[in-house]
């Protein structure tokens, strides 16, 4: 079974790193994973995206074709990529105004606010988002994802990032109940 993720937001939000960590966690979990991204002028500001495909089997095509999950942290990325969603779930930051034109199932989660207020660091929004995405999708557990986060984040920031990840998983639980 192939599960496709598209992580979108604005350049500089760290979504590429979030995508890499998600893929690495899947590999730690014994699965196959491919991560791709759009490189463009939009990588500084504007809409940017990273994609991750995870499967227990061989992955032939590396990009998302019909994402199972879209994470959108900004209005622009929600508008751009939300329209392309067919059967998957959209996870948006609660700052995003939802549109009637986008029909896919959507949940709104306070990712940016949780990073800024609960953790006190806006820069960890990507890791909060990663926790929320993993929690909602159930693609990989918190301990494996925590190990992957630990492997990738700068030395000295591990605890901060793990706290952000835990907050993300909490946000996911709130969505489910």
């Amino acid at each position, binding site marked *: 079974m192939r599960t496709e993720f598209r992580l979108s937001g604005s350049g500089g939000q760290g979504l590429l790193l979030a995508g*890499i960590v998600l*893929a*690495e966690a899947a*590999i730690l979990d*014994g699965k*196959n*994973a*491919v*991560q*791709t*991204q*759009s*490189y*463009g002028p939009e990588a500084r500001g504007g809409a940017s995206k990273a994609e991750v495909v995870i499967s227990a089997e061989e*992955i*032939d*095509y*590396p*990009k998302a*074709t019909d994402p199972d999950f879209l994470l959108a942290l900004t209005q622009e990325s929600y508008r751009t990529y939300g329209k392309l969603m067919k059967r998957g779930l959209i996870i948006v930051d609660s700052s995003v105004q939802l549109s009637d034109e986008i029909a896919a199932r959507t949940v709104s989660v306070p990712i940016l606010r949780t990073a800024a207020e609960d953790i006190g660091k806006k820069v960890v929004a990507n890791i909060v988002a990663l926790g929320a995405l993993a929690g909602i999708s159930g693609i990989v557990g918190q301990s494996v994802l925590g190990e992957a986060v630990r492997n990738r984040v700068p030395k000295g920031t591990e605890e901060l990032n793990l706290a952000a990840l835990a907050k993300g998983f909490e946000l996911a639980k709130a969505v489910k109940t």
Partner: protein
Amino acid sequence: MPNAKLMQGNEACTLGALAAGLEFFAGYPITPSTEIAELCAEELPKLGGKFLQMEDEIGSIAAIIGASLTGKKSMTATSGPGFSLMQECIGYSSLCEIPIVIINVQRMGPSTGMPTSPAQGDVMQARWGTHGDHPVIVLAPGNVKECFELTVRAFNLAEKYRVPVIVLMDEVIGHMREKVILPEQSSIKVVNRKAPAAPGSYVPYAADPNGGVPDMAPFGEGFRWHVTGLFHDETGFPSNKGEVADTLLRRINLKVEKNEPEIRDYAVEGVDDCDTLVVTFGCSAMSALSAVRQARKNGIKAGLLRLKTIWPFPEATFDGIMGHVKRVIVPEMNLGQLAGEVERAVARRAAVERLGKVNGELFRPEEILSVITNGAARTAEASK
């Protein structure tokens, strides 16, 4: 899982070069190949090698030719615009028989084009970018692991035949990250150029005229050797004699031509009974593989031939798989550069349908599946 790692294509390529014995890198960083230069700058000095950032791509290739002459395995990495600038020196490397490896991570062209968008428009430039009949080998990885494997192979072929070898990657393959398990260094076959025994009797270009490869002496170790881009005789000194030029040009081209079966490399899926054959390479092959598998599920007898060696073009491969084939589809991110060669190899045994994509976006599997299912003409009609 032993050493399973998420790795980028450009990273795997660099690690392959290091595993093959890379000792010298000179380059001028350019998107989407920059990570190769970055990683070489970081890793080469640790291994006693040298990294040089040059003033441009002409300087870069000239520098690796010079380093190779001293016996060091040398490489540069670039993309379309830089590759264009390197063409003259590729000819020099061919004629002077100086082994070098060039990584070309293709992007949209011509000219500066679209720096961050994938393309496969350098198929012909890789073969014929420099003037005159010349030997060159071009390999095309189709996934991250092959970026490692084919870069190792590029060095081995360059050393064995004393030719420039080009690894033709693309933005998708170069930048994507994939789970890879790299082989142990001890299990990697590494070929080194054959050096002459003693300086006294060394005749630098003495070789069997029927495609022989002369022994190569490293500069600085007492061998006397003249290197020139003019046609030269066995001593390496220039000659204007017709028969000398004829012998030399035929010999250097025969090195590759005669050994095509050994250089040939490809992957197949479903070709035993297919009536629709898809032929492609690099990033397009990932989309094509997905399309062929979906077509099979839909009951269509589709197959895939994915070329890992593009030049010399593996013409004989087609003889083995054309059996039931009625249609050949060639998806590529250019306007038909590989397709022309495929048409030649298919030699009217089946219809060849060209499927070129030049908008800077990787083929979606459905695009190829639709052509497999409906034919190129009818698919184009339907999309109007």
